[in-house]
């Protein structure tokens, strides 16, 4: 595989698909749909090849590609993956083809523009995970924003303009701060070394940081700027309020990608950049961030209980579940960080599945309000069974994947300070409360008048819908029983993170 630029291929194959779709006739939506799905599947297959070819026991970045881009500022086109980014790339490509398949039915107008947006979105997401140059990373980061803005704004629900503006402006505030931090970091590096060479190169900067060369006050400022950008994306309490609005208004596939991948961009940024580049600051701000994470875990769950809308409920539950990720990152233990990364993947699979399932009901009822549902277990038994399965996975049932990640975060945090876990363990009851109460109102009891009024429209899941969910369900079981399939990739990245974070303790 050595000569083949596989990372560039994976990143830009969807772009090729988008260009191809652009020249296809708009009058044949099925051809467009199939082309989009084919592109996404091909990208997925390539990413699986990458997964297999990746040397799990080898530390450092693999499949690196580098070329000068703007040499006068040392900006490069540099890609590379470690165990963490490989997993994130595969998560992205998997959810992408599932989302495109899930859009076949629901997206009926402007199919061409939709599919182009989606494929461009995929380019941006993959790019974020493989970029090793900070400027390139920023470009990909911003690239994600545009198609998502369109997907929510054009194909979204009634209140879509408000939601998408909020999403974009909020994220933009964060990413502009990030740009400032990136530029400041490069300037500092250039000032210290006297050369622009490597000023945006992650590996060079990280080595520079490991040597303790970034001053403490500089670290505090730069870290805060980056942290804010990433915290908004995760989203951490109290920067989370764009999420329920965006989720509620986004089309189903948009919600899947939003929850499944976009939120992970923030967590990935924290693990890859914020902590290893500014370790002193990361340690300084660790406790406030831990407290915010605990608040997110508990508060997100409490607020979920009273949500009247299915999507809004899942959105708030994401705030709670992503709290585990940020908690796991900032207690600086191998166990907790592995749990956090597992949680990133599991949340993508589980919450992605939940949004797909809500989409299935929405297709039939054009409603998501919990109060109008009831008795779906009788009218849609297969859907109810699958929904129940994903709900149990989300509630952290042992044997399914969600449990392992959350438990590892808790154990790792308990080792760091038992009080953290004591303060947040109540989530075990809360998560069951909001999910099972919701499930009871939606699936159990007699069939509601609203659903009865729809009559034959309320049919059980179709084959295509089942096909979008089956792979997610299978992975949830497999990773629940054999988490080592994921953990095997993580020794190197976690080791690297801990060394990088630890190098700050003295400085």
């Amino acid at each position, binding site marked *: 595989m050595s000569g083949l630029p596989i990372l560039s291929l994976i990143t830009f194959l969807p772009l090729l698909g988008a260009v191809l779709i652009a020249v296809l006739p708009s009058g044949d939506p099925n051809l467009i749909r199939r082309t989009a799905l084919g592109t996404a599947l091909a990208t997925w297959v390539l990413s699986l090849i990458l997964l297999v070819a990746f040397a799990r026991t080898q530390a450092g970045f693999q499949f690196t590609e580098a070329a000068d881009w703007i040499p006068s500022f040392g900006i490069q086109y540099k890609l590379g993956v470690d165990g963490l980014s490989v997993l994130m790339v595969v998560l992205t490509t998997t959810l992408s083809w599932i989302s495109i398949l899930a859009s076949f039915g629901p997206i009926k107008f402007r199919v061409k523009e939709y599919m182009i947006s989606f494929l461009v979105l995929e380019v941006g997401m993959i790019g974020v995970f493989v970029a090793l140059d900070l400027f390139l990373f920023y470009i990909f980061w911003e690239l994600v924003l545009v198609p998502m803005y369109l997907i929510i704004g054009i194909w979204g629900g009634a209140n879509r303009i408000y939601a998408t503006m909020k999403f974009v*402006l*909020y994220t933009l505030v964060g990413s502009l701060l990030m740009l400032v931090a990136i530029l*400041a970091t490069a*300037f*500092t590096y250039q*000032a210290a070394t006297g050369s622009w060479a490597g000023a945006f190169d992650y590996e060079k900067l990280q080595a520079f940081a490991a040597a303790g060369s970034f*001053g*403490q*006050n*500089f670290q505090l*400022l730069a870290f805060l700027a980056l942290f804010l950008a990433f915290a908004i994306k995760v989203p951490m*309490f*109290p920067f*989370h*309020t764009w999420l329920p609005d965006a989720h509620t208004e986004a089309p189903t596939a948009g919600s899947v990608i939003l929850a499944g991948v976009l939120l992970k961009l923030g967590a990935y940024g924290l693990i890859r950049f914020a902590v290893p580049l500014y370790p002193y600051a990361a340690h300084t701000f660790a406790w406030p961030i831990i407290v915010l994470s605990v608040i997110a875990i508990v*508060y997100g769950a*409490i*607020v979920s*209980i*009273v*949500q009247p809308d299915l999507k809004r409920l899942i959105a708030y539950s994401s705030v709670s579940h992503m709290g585990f990720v940020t908690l796991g990152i900032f207690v600086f233990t*191998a*166990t907790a960080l*592995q749990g956090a990364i597992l949680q990133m993947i599991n949340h993508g699979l589980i919450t992605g599945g939940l949004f797909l399932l809500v989409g299935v009901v929405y297709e039939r009822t054009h409603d998501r309000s919990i109060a109008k549902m009831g*008795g779906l277990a009788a009218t849609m038994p297969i859907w109810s069974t699958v929904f129940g399965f994903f709900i149990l996975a989300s509630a952290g*049932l*042992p*044997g399914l994947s969600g*449990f*392992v990640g959350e*438990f*590892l975060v*808790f*154990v790792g945090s*308990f*080792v760091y300070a*038992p009080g953290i*876990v*004591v303060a947040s*363990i*109540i989530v*075990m*009851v809360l998560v*069951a*409360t909001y999910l*099972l*109460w919701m499930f*009871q109102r939606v699936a*159990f*009891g*007699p069939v509601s008048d609203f659903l009865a009024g729809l009559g034959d429209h309320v049919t059980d899941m179709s084959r295509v819908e089942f096909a979008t969910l089956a792979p997610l369900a299978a992975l949830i079981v497999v990773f629940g029983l*054999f*988490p*080592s399939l994921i*953990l*095997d990739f*993580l*020794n190197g990245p*976690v*080791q690297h993170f801990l060394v990088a974070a630890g190098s700050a303790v003295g400085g």
Partner: protein
Amino acid sequence: MTALLPLIPILPLGGFVLTGLLGRRYPDDAHRIAVWAVVASWVVASIVAVMALLHASPFGTGGAGITLWTWIPANGFASGFNASMGLFVDPLTACLLIVVTTIGMLVHVYSIGYMAHDPGRWRFFAYLNLFMFSMLLLVMADNFLLVFAGWELVGLCSYLLIGFWYPRRTAAVAAKKAFLVNRIGDMGFALGIMAIWTQLGTLNMQDVFAKFGSVPHEWQIAIALLIFCGAVGKSAQFPLHVWLPDAMEGPTPVSALIHAATMVNAGVYLVARCNPIFGAAPEVMVVVAAIGIFTAILAASIAFTQTDIKRVLAYSTLSQLGYMFASLGVGAWTAAIFHLMSHGFFKGLLFLDSGSVIHSVDGEQDMRKMGGLARKIPITYATMLVGAVAISGVPPLAGFFSKDEILGGAFKNGFLWVWAIGFVVAGMTAFYMFRLMGMTFWGPSHVDPEVEHHIHESPRSMTGPLILLAIPAALLGLAIGFPPETGLLHQWLAPVFASTIAASGHTEAAYNFFGVDGALAIGTTALVAVAIVLAWRLFGVEIPVLGLRAQPRPDQVREISARRGLALLYKGSFNKWWFDDINNKLFVEWGGKLAAAAFWFDRTVVDGTVNGIGTVTAGAGGWLRRVQTGRVQNYALGIALGLILVAAGYLVIAAR
């Protein structure tokens, strides 16, 4: 031999998968898979259990296990968390295997008839199989994390089966309540597991027990208390007892299997299994004994006045589980497992009997609308009588021996208060059980005339298991508990508890019938006899013995308490001491208000701030528009000023 162990849980797991997949296509036959899977599991479990109880190779006295794979790997990190997928069988596990697979198998057979007319029968059997898998995983797991997995999975099955008739709102609500209340206890259990890991760096149970002495004492206490939290939830002890009576919304075979004979015993099993942990924290043992015996008398007092036949049995289960915890708390470890086994059989029997009764009177569960059923459903009556006599503690049936050992253990280990309360509860148990028998089977019929003429005995698939369960309910005590304190069970379990008992300093005096032990046994038996006669007198006699013929009325307890100025006590008992009302107020109402307040905070304060900033920015934008004068000089000035500002900021930062 150990290669057989995985088969025991995997057979029902396979049954679950197959029944679940094929059920929709073959709704009339899929349940056969589930039944045969459990029968096969029973065969393997019996072989394994007998070998383990006889301390035969490879089990010996310490047990033996098998590791299937590394569930969570340490992944190369020095203190990386790890847990295995491993099974372990020792004599204690073997006792549980016998109870779980035997009663499980009989309940499966019984359910063929009981659920014959339910269109969701295959689903029911799939869930039952999943439960068998989970319960077997729980008792066979070799590490705490895997126990926790089984622990949560049985909770899930309980949820699915209580809510089996989901169109009924009460069933759905009860199912959710059971799961949530259990999770409250599970929080403690989970924290306990994390504490064990933090202190010892392993979760393998045998390793933990071996090293537990090295843990600082305050952590020993914390760990024991936290594990006990889990047990309190799963075994429905005060104050988490509220879910079990509501769980009776599930089909009756479920009540028999899960909510009487197996799952609710998991807490007792866990504490017994962790005897080295509790032995190291005697302070917690007192808590265990206190919670147990308090639950015993609390639940018995409620059982006095309930009118739903299954609820009486549910409160009776709470009470008997309380006995078991009291027994564990006073250090009578073997007696607790003895009572677990005998209770499993006779309470399983009683529940299946109640199902047969309900089946015969067209689904009626209110005992005030029963009466005089003895002649009409004789097999059910006879087997239920065996169960009632057994639970009341009449010699020589199973309950007599196990209860006697608990009371004797409390007395001889110096817990006189536990003994005294337990003694009273023994009398109460006999009374409420024969109140149940009287209201159901004796005296004149109060059955709805519509139903009256088609009262019928249950089919053979249901009466068969009743007869088979009546045998151990009657004879188990004699078989494994006689002679007292030296019987087979004590020989089997001795190695499990030996070191903890030795460390506790309770030197067990030999059982002496012509001494304190005999006196206690006779005292209890006399009280039980009086209680039975009293209930007999109040609730109807068919045979005119000693002039005890009476015309029973269903509400005897209420009338008598009113006459004696005890109306308040009656009210308290009838309303289950208002626990449900308090919980409803506290958690459902106020908890709901808290959540609503949090949501209000989120919308108005957190999001309000964000939108506020947005509005201010938009307003500022309108004002700033005036800056766009169109004059290039102004822009150039702005750019220059901005550059100076940025550069200054950068210089300040870089200078540090």
